[in-house]
């Protein structure tokens, strides 16, 4: 990829550059001193069209066809910058020199016009597949992200990224062009060709990220590519003898974007009583107790605790430092970097730290050989509560009585109020911090040596080896404790037995890839051949030990516990692949590309072990046709079409092998333990196959007014067949768990539009850019062989509907009049009262029952979009980035919303102040006390569309003279905020959440404000 430019004429761009520079060139006339010289490449060939500019101005020129230039300067202190696409820019102080002989070094940095594709690079104009590109330095700035993948959110059309929440160290899910499987839909991430995770890399080490969205671009990755491929390219080593030190660091504070507003204790007591009375029970709280709570006269027995407020803090600290050194020493270039991220959680008791390191080495060995090695890794540590039963602390916040104090008067943890009914509030602050601790540690290292050989022009052979090793250790301590009430009596909140669970995981990935690439240009015909092989292996070993009754909660090692239970497993998979690509380009007008990959995988049964994935794509750059050459407005125009197939091999490790699994066992001979047996508990499918995605689409790329305005539009279909499904089997088979069958089909259809515009306003020096991307996706399950799956009691996978659709009764309002009670039938055997929810009688019989359930919402957004704006003026720069989704639903009951008919301490959100009572017949919420109002219904489905200012950054770059005084090359300071503003209909919860999070229990998203500086010297 580094050699892509070699000997190629890049006419449209040079033309563009020339036009620009001729335009600027007129300004040079006023200068009084002429310097001249020649610019050559490393091989000594003159470079025409090199951009030469006086630093800090727009004055400049370009070299002629012999690489020569002349430029007028007025001050010896002036620096001249030489830049040319595909080469490292060079800066020279004019001094007393009149003549310069400049040698530009081939750039290892990728300019936006060169796009990294599978096993190579390609000029953006010549792409025929759908590839989205992000270059973080240019596009993103210093967005404070807890995980590197979050940088992609909203940046690329068709790529949906959802953060799991603001928990330190938490990840995100990425869905490319819609969810195409009922199973794991995460894309393949390759870092310089090495399988990995985006968390393995520092944002500042990333040169570019290419997202391969369709089969035309991704089928070369075959059976791992069905969910899309993300190619991360890291920066190369330095290009000059001088060490370049780049420090970028920021620090700031975070808080929750939004926290639920729960009822004050006196309102809670009132509603609790109301619910109980309506449900035919006695009220719990006396009027005196309610009065005490309202007056606040007995805060330890009748307090008013806002658990959400108490469990989260405003201003959790966040810092991130990245330091890199790069240099060229002899024939060797290196880049060394280290990064440190420290994130305290907004929830008490949560935190994460991460260290990333990297060494990229590349050395020219002569005779066409290049040797390189990338060594990188990540060390991660995080801490959280180990109490994840009952869905963890998030659920406790809503399920705790506000009467209970955080601390009793004697300073001990609160867990009960003065009312005898409330002796079991699982104090969320206690559970978040001192009831248990979980420590997650992991350490990952990747070694990636490679050798490249270019025997003759146009031919590149490359062998690329990688090995990565991850060691993870989780320790979960659950302490024993007995909490007390306000009067010092034991409450119901206790853990009689402490425990410690240690889980260790190791992951090893080895990959060896060999490629041969040949470029040839014959007149107007450009040809490119690529062939390669991959050998890949992956191994995962897990062991766990759980011990109990440690003599003290302060002991941290498993040796001190007793009654151990242990577990362990080992999984391995291997891949053996062949792939090839043929590209043909006629006169930069007609483009054709064919890809083929054959994957042999250990996951497939022997008789069906090799999978073949073809892809074809074509393009027509119509703007290069003679008849359009004169249309000045249109600077670029291309249409493209593609078709191809991809596979998903996430089907388990040995799914074809009929194993006998250990069973609970049976005690013979009066034994006090059961001896385990072996039996078939899960059926295997000896004929199992990969899931196959057929994708096709058309696209158009347009540039107007010298590409100041660019438009890219795509229409796509992603049709996944043979999706693994567990189809029900007759009970007479005698096995509970059926085998996976290749039986389902899901189709995603959609379009994408990306528009970008940049310009500067006259001669004011104000530069601006504005762009947006918009995606519409329709997700539909085409076939499940007539079956229906229920991932949980609110969601359904059903033919003809999107994956994970919400399913239940359709609520059509509240019974407000006697006529309503007459008119609408109710749940079988139940009688509604005024204030209850009316459910639609879908099937038209005379009762409401299971058959009236229907699709009531879609957790997959129909539209998603991102808008970015940039503005630069005299050293100041401002970046704004908005991101949003439209037409997406969440289900919002149980947590903070419930009928109050059950015996528990669940609080309500303040919405419930407007519930139905005889005095408030126009209420928005139903009456309390009827458990049937808790039925899964559309009443609890809420529109979670949102638009948010995802990131805003204001920076100032100090001018050269300041830098010089400080002996710096460059100095920039900035302020950055993520998620400062959100527009959404949701009141109490952040609208951004995983599609399968069907309760209001996600760790809240955070908004951060950070200040940072970027220093280069």
């Amino acid at each position, binding site marked *: 990829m580094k050699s892509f430019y070699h000997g190629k004429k890049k006419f449209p761009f040079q033309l563009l550059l020339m036009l620009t520079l001729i335009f600027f060139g007129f300004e040079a006339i006023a200068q009084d001193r002429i310097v001249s010289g020649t610019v050559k490449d490393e091989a000594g060939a003159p470079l025409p069209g090199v951009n030469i500019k006086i630093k800090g101005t727009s004055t400049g020129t370009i070299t002629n066809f012999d690489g020569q230039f002349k430029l007028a300067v007025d001050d010896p202190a002036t620096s001249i910058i030489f830049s040319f696409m595909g080469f490292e820019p060079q800066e020279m102080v004019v001094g007393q020199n009149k003549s310069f002989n400049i040698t530009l070094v081939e750039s290892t940095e990728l300019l936006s016009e060169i796009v990294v594709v599978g096993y190579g690079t390609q000029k953006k104009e010549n792409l025929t597949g759908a590839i989205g590109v992000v270059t973080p330095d240019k596009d993103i700035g210093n967005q404070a992200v807890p995980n590197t993948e979050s940088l992609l959110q909203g940046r690329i059309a068709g790529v949906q990224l959802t953060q799991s929440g603001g928990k330190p160290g938490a990840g995100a899910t990425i869905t490319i062009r819609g969810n195409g499987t009922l199973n794991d839909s995460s894309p393949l991430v390759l870092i310089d060709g090495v399988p990995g995770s985006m968390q393995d890399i520092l944002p500042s080490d990333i040169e570019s990220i290419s997202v391969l969205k369709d089969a035309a671009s991704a089928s070369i990755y075959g059976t791992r590519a069905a969910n899309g491929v993300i190619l991360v390219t890291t920066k190369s080593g330095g290009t000059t003898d001088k060490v370049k030190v780049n420090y970028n660091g920021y620090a700031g504070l975070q808080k929750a974007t939004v926290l639920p507003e729960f009822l004050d204790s006196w309102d809670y007591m009132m509603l609790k009583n109301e619910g109980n009375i309506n449900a035919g029970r006695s009220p719990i709280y006396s009027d005196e107790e309610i009065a005490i709570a309202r007056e606040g006269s007995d805060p330890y027995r009748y307090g008013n605790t806002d658990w959400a407020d108490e469990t989260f803090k405003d201003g959790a600290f966040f810092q991130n430092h990245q330091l890199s050194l790069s240099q060229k020493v002899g024939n060797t270039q290196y880049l060394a970097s280290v990064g440190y991220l420290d994130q305290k959680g907004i929830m008490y008791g949560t935190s994460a730290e991460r260290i990333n390191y990297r060494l990229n080495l590349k050395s020219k060995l002569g005779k066409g050989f290049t040797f390189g090695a990338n060594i990188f890794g990540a060390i991660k540590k995080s801490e959280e509560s180990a109490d994840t039963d009952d869905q963890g602390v998030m659920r406790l916040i809503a399920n705790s009585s506000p009467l209970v104090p955080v601390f009793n008067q004697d300073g001990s943890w609160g867990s009960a109020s003065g009312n005898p009914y409330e002796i079991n509030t699982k104090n969320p602050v206690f559970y978040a911090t001192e009831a248990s601790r979980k420590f997650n540690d992991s350490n990952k290292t990747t070694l990636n040596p490679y050798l490249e050989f270019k025997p003759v022009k146009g031919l590149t052979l490359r062998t690329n080896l990688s090995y990565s090793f991850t060691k993870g250790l989780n320790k979960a301590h659950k302490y024993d404790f007995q909490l007390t009430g306000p009067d010092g009596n034991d409450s119901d909140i206790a853990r009689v037995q402490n425990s410690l669970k240690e889980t260790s995981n190791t992951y090893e990935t080895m990959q060896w890839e060999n490629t041969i690439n040949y470029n040839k240009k014959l007149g107007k015909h450009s040809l490119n051949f690529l062939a390669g092989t991959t050998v890949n292996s992956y191994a995962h070993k897990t062991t766990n030990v759980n011990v109990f009754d440690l003599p003290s909660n302060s002991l941290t090692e498993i040796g001190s516990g007793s009654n151990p239970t242990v577990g362990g497993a080992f999984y391995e998979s291997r891949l053996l692949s*062949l792939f090839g690509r043929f590209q043909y380009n006629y006169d930069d007008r007609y483009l054709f590309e064919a890809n083929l990959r054959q994957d042999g995988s250990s996951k497939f049964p022997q008789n069906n072990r090799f999978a073949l994935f073809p892809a074809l794509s074509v393009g027509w750059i119509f703007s290069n046709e003679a008849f359009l050459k004169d249309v000045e407005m249109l600077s670029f125009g291309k249409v493209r079409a593609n078709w191809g197939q991809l596979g998903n091999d996430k089907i388990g*490790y040995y799914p074809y092998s009929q194993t*006998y699994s250990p*069973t*609970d066992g049976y005690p013979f001979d009066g034994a006090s333990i059961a001896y385990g047996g072996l039996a078939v508990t899960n059926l295997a499918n000896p004929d199992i196959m990969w899931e196959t995605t057929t994708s096709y689409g058309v696209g158009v790329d347009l540039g107007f007014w010298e590409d100041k305005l660019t438009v890219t539009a795509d229409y796509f279909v992603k049709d996944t067949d043979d999706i693994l499904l567990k189809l029900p089997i*007759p009970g007479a088979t005698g096995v509970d768990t059926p085998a996976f069958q290749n039986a389902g089909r899901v189709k995603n259809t959609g379009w994408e539009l990306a528009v970008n515009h940049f310009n500067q306003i006259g001669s004011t020096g104000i530069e601006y850019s504005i762009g947006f991307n918009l995606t519409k996706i329709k997700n539909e399950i085409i076939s499940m062989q007539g079956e229906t799956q229920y991932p949980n009691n609110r969601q359904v996978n059903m033919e003809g509907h999107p994956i994970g659709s919400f399913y239940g009764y359709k609520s059509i309002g509240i019974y407000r009049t006697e006529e309503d009670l007459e008119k609408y039938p109710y749940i079988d055997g139940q009688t509604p009262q005024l204030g209850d929810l009316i459910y639609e009688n879908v099937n038209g019989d005379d009762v409401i029952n299971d058959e009236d359930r229907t699709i009531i919402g879609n957790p997959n957004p129909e539209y998603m979009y991102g808008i970015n704006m940039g503005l630069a003026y005299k050293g100041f720069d401002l970046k704004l980035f908005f991101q949003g989704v439209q037409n997406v639903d969440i289900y919002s009951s149980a947590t903070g919303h419930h009928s109050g008919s059950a015996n528990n301490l669940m609080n309500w959100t303040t919405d419930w102040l407007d519930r139905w009572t005889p005095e408030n017949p126009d209420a928005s919420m139903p009456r309390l006390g009827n458990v049937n109002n808790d039925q899964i219904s559309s009443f609890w489905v809420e529109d979670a569309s949102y638009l948010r200012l995802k990131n805003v950054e204001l920076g100032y770059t100090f001018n050269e003279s300041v830098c010089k005084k400080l002996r710096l090359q460059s100095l920039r300071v900035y302020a950055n905020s993520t998620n400062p503003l959100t527009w959404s209909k949701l009141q109490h919860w952040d609208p951004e959440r995983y599609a399968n999070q069907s309760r209001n229990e996600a760790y809240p998203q955070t908004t951060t404000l950070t200040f940072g500086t970027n220093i280069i010297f």
Partner: protein
Amino acid sequence: MKKAIITLLGAACFSCSNYLDLQDNNTLNQDSFWQTEDHLALAVTAAYESLTPEELYGRGIRDLDCVSDNGYNEWTWMKYWDISVGQHNPATDRINWVWNDNYRGIRRANEILDNAPTMDINAEVKDVAIGEALFLRALFYNNLSMLFNNVPLILKVVSPQEARIEKSTKEEVVQQIIEDLTMAIDLLPTKSEQVGKINKYAALALRARVYLYNQQYENAIKDCEEVINSGKFGLVSDYDFLFSAEGQNSEESIFSVQFVSNLKSGERFSGTYKKQPQSHFGVLPNLVYDYYTKNGLKPEDDPDATPFSVWSDENGVPKSEKELEAEGLSIYDYWAEFANRDPRLDHTILRGGEPWLDQAKWDNTVKATRYGIQKYIRKEVGLYTDGDRNFMILRYADVLLMYAEAKNEFSGPSGDVFNALNQIRRRVDMADFDSSLSQDELREEIRHERRVELALEGLRYFDELRWKTAKNDFENNVIFHDRTFNESKHYWWPIPQTEIDRNPNLSQNSGW
């Protein structure tokens, strides 16, 4: 050109394609299993384990007494109530659960029957394993044939496709059960090598039960005689002791399902939850009424006794102390009356006022029927869902009762019949049977004796089905709540709807 390269590289690739052959070393698979005696032992253990699920001998079979006239299930989600009142249908969950759990056991037995014969190991070990598998398969098919009548007869390890067959008739299923047991009797040792293992007499006793259930009295008599004459079994002298922790695997137990605690495989039929015995399980008053007095008479016929109905409302629910006082009655008389009954009543049921755990007088208002279960119930408060009591599938008293019943049906009252029956009576100090009874009278007495001796052991429902007495007993004799028993379909269960949905070759049972 490209094709050539692919072919060439493909050839190179195939040469190393064993690189892609990976072995799952986490557990054994079809190829690596079935090699050693240990392997066979593991398969046998898994087959025995299939007795233990909650829906079978872990609780469900015992709880079939709740759909008979002995018990009342208060927890509607368990779906016993639906069946007991005749509101069940093919979609009733319990029917599906019972079906699946029996077929799971059948598969585990079939695994052994398919694979053991070709194993290259000690022949005797193999024979015993095959004998055990045959016994278990017969036991599960007996459950199925009793509950569903006609079911698919699956006699080897099947794929889901192979399991999609039409049901066989009850006669064919019973024929297969008898064949399996006959072979098992040949293969099994006379004495189990380990406690809890199936031996020849367990197979004989089970075959006797199957013969009796299917009215083949002469064969049943023979099998019972062989068990009785073996001299290996006897009655435990203390009826209460028989169901205690110490009484497990006693000389009376012919085959018991073994349970241990602190594992998922513990049983659920003996637990006390929040200090209540089996919260879901209530005992019907009509069972309480049915116990004879000390004098061996029906309470209403015994001048020394007062029927419990005196202290109860029309549903058989005992009245409270206050209610009784208002009527001029004393709760103390009610309590005293229990001492005037067959002692098995007190051992079997828990009544209000009885000392229970830390309660000096058990508060019976926690039960809808005001009677709790006491047989098998652990008095220590342990893990409710993880009990360690063994469950007797076949015990010697049952064999004596089966013998008496079969012989009376076959040849009428005789000394052998009374001898067998009186052994059971004498253990609990009850009077001997009246030896002047006619065959029909004795039939009624034997049925009564089976009911009180084997109450709450999961046998009553099967007896009602085979005697065809359910309509009268359920509709007319259950006094606590109303039941409906439709003779045109309630003597067998419907095939589960999910099974019909998943097996197009399977037709529904008649009447459903």
